[in-house]
């Protein structure tokens, strides 16, 4: 809808239009369900319960995007990788900054209303970039998980703490890094710590009191369904085998799930098994690691699951954001679409978990094909040989996007990227690293340099590169690809005007034509972009916001 058209519509139905653009007051559960109908706001981590990172705002178009101008910058005072996604709620923006601050800003000017400061326990144990990716909102309350495994409720008007609940032991390696998901009267979170031998869980807390309402363990205990996939050790095992491996089985949660209000199911991706690489000490499929779980939002009961990588030995966390697509490819089926770290794109029936599609979107050699139920036929590579995709995956936690307008699913991918694995047995010790070896080479090239890429890209073409890959969401067929020289950890945003915004480690923030992948605009933000862009509207002006380096950059047409 163009601005002109919208003005006409406003004239015809002034009251309805006014309500749609200036809704003040509390964020009700119903507003969260209908978040896509108020595109001036960005109400959840992924934009809506459907997690498509797609906006119907269309003021910025392929024709005028080259005129985007920087409006303001907010600089974080805290050094380190910054991965937050802002919320924009009725004229206020909420972000998190390291380690666990919440900042309320004016989305028009970037000026700060208040800062809530939280200092996590100094003895916290957090792997892989101690970070926080954002808050959730309900009513006038914000919710945040902390690095020392607490959930905190904060007054959205004042930044004052309302309640705080400890959900697990931080000194045992539990942490929370993702933005919570509010469903009705509960705030749902999961715990990280997959590299420390935790027993992962997803739990819901009463929004008023902070009391735990339900808890679902991602590693089933004795007597629970799925526990049989933690098989007994062979009587004469030649390598170390832990008969109680499930107790330290990992299954961390570190990206925000989705919610289908009609089915009342919430979908979450479960992380890697512990230990990550030493598969022989934990025989079996190791449910529900590297899986999607569909839980009843009221009581946490498991409705269905699908395991992307049974008995994972590659650290292929299934922590990607579950993207919900209604009437998938005009089939009448509502699906969860999923580009997995293991290099495959999937579609699953949202009601039943039925496997509908699995197709590689990058080079894959850890498996050959799927059986009719969607179980991969695994093809482990010989010792010393590269496994594709590598340890960081064909994609990872970077938010994908689905545009109902193009029917395309957009992925931040690492192409031609492999690792050579070196597993080793490991004994569990509380709070200690529990990976069981690791990748000896994060490339197919022995002796290639390590992970330091930007600002000097020493990896080059020899060890893979980044790309935005657009798939036909129905078939998984690649429609176009936008190559980057360095890799990318950026999320993706698409809009109704067929724009796609994304970043990368090189520090460029780019707008592509969502239909063709053509580059339409770019700007250099000076440091790696490790977050997902969002868009919102204030008055009649559309804004695009993205975190890059230590800056939150906001663009609009002048």
């Amino acid at each position, binding site marked *: 809808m163009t601005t002109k058209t919208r003005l006409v519509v406003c004239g015809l139905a002034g009251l309805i239009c006014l309500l749609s653009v200036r809704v003040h007051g509390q964020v009700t559960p119903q507003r969260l369900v209908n978040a896509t109908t108020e595109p001036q706001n960005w109400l959840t981590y992924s934009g809506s319960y459907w997690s498509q990172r797609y906006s119907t705002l269309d003021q910025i178009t392929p024709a005028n995007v080259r005129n985007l101008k920087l409006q303001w910058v907010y600089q974080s005072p805290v050094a380190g990788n910054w991965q937050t996604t802002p919320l924009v709620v009725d004229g206020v923006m909420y972000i998190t900054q390291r380690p666990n601050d919440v900042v309320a800003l004016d989305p028009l000017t970037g000026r700060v209303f208040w800062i809530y400061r939280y200092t996590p326990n100094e003895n916290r144990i957090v792997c892989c970039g101690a970070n926080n990716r954002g808050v959730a909102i309900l009513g006038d309350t914000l919710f945040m998980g902390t690095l020392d495994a607490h959930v905190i409720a904060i007054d959205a008007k004042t930044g004052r703490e309302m309640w705080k609940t400890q959900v697990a032991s931080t000194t045992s390696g539990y942490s929370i890094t993702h933005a919570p998901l509010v469903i009705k009267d509960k705030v749902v979170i999961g715990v990280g710590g997959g590299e420390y031998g935790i027993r992962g869980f997803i739990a819901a807390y009463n929004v008023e009191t902070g009391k735990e309402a339900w808890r679902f363990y991602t590693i089933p205990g004795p007597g629970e369904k799925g526990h049989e996939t933690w098989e007994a050790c062979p009587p004469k*095992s*030649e*390598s*170390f*085998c*832990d008969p109680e491996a499930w107790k330290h089985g990992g299954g961390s949660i570190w990206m925000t799930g989705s919610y289908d209000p009609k089915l009342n199911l919430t979908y979450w991706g479960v992380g890697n098994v512990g230990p990550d690489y030493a598969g*022989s000490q934990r025989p079996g499929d190791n449910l529900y690691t590297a899986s999607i779980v569909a839980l009843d939002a009221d009581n946490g009961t498991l409705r269905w699951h699908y395991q992307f990588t049974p008995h994972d030995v590659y650290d292929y966390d299934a922590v990607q954001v579950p993207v919900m697509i209604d009437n998938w490819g005009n089939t009448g089926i509502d699906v969860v679409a999923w580009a997995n770290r293991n290099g495959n794109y999937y579609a699953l029936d949202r009601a039943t978990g039925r496997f509908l599609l699995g197709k590689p979107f990058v080079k894959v050699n850890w498996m050959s094909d799927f059986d009719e139920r969607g179980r991969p036929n695994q093809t482990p590579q010989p*010792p*010393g040989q590269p496994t594709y995709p590598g340890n960081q995956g064909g994609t990872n936690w970077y938010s994908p996007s689905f545009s109902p307008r193009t029917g395309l699913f957009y992925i931040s991918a690492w192409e031609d990227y492999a690792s050579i*694995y*070196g*597993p*080793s*047995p*490991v*004994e569990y010790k509380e709070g200690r690293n529990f990976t069981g*070896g*690791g990748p000896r080479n994060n490339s197919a*090239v022995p*002796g*290639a*340099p390590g992970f330091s890429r930007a*600002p*000097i*890209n*020493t*990896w*080059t*073409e*020899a*060890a893979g590169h980044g790309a935005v890959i657009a798939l036909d969401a129905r078939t998984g067929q690649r429609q176009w690809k936008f*190559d*980057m*020289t*360095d890799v990318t950890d950026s999320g993706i945003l698409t809009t109704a005007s067929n724009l796609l915004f994304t970043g*990368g480690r*090189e520090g*460029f923030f780019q707008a592509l034509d969502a239909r063709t992948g053509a580059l339409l605009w*770019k700007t250099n933000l000076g440091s790696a972009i490790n977050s997902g862009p969002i868009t919102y509207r204030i008055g009649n002006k559309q804004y695009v916001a993205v975190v890059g380096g230590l800056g939150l950059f906001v663009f609009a047409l002048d």
Partner: protein
Amino acid sequence: MKRVFATVVLSLVAGAVGVRSASAQATNDARLKPDTTNQLHDAQYPEVDIVYGAGLYKARCVTCHGDQGDAIGGVNLRSGKFRNAVTDTELARFIRAGSPAAGMPPFALDNAEMAGITAYLRNMNTFDTASVKAGDAARGRAIFEGKGGCVACHRVGLVGSRVAPNLSDIGSQRSPGSLQRSLLDPSGQMMPINRPVRLVKKDGTIVNGRRLNEDTYSIQVIDDKERLHSILKADLKEFTISKTSPMPSFKDTLNSGEIADVLGYLQSLKGQ
């Protein structure tokens, strides 16, 4: 004082061999051993790395652990296996972290030193230190600046060309084994970022040089006249990356003693 600290570094690593925890016993600790079918560490440690590590051991470890690696009761470094450090990565982490409770301080070794000490510890049981004939750094420098012609392309300190990678601190960055391979098979050891590039702009300008950095839209090089260029890929009509190093192999032009001397010199280059 510094030396005293340094000599106790490996004591805790060794201690791990001697005393196993009760919990490890309970979980069938005999099987918590390296899985050789999956190669926890490089199967072959270059002899020059072992030699280098032997020198480090003699300088920094021998006072506590002794020539045979068994001077501390219940500890036998010569076994090459360590309870708290199965893989080489874990061994490196352990040595760098130390363990105050056992009187072992953190110990900073650069990557080359760690590669050397690891190679030596893994081969201590079979390696005969009496056979070690390390190269002579002074002779190596003479070859580097003279007969070898290295300074025509490389630079150390204030001497030499900037066309090829600066080697002023190469001895702390690359292991002796890697340096030796570079002398004998330069293309095989060339870092991908250093691959020679040939750039032809749309206006016909040609730039030949070494890649310093590259992104989606541009490339940065130092050319064969030591000039820095940053060129937009949109301005190029030809962009070629070669996998062949311009550096010659010294396999046939220097004898093994001279190679060892040059290697000794390169190992001595630790920057300032």
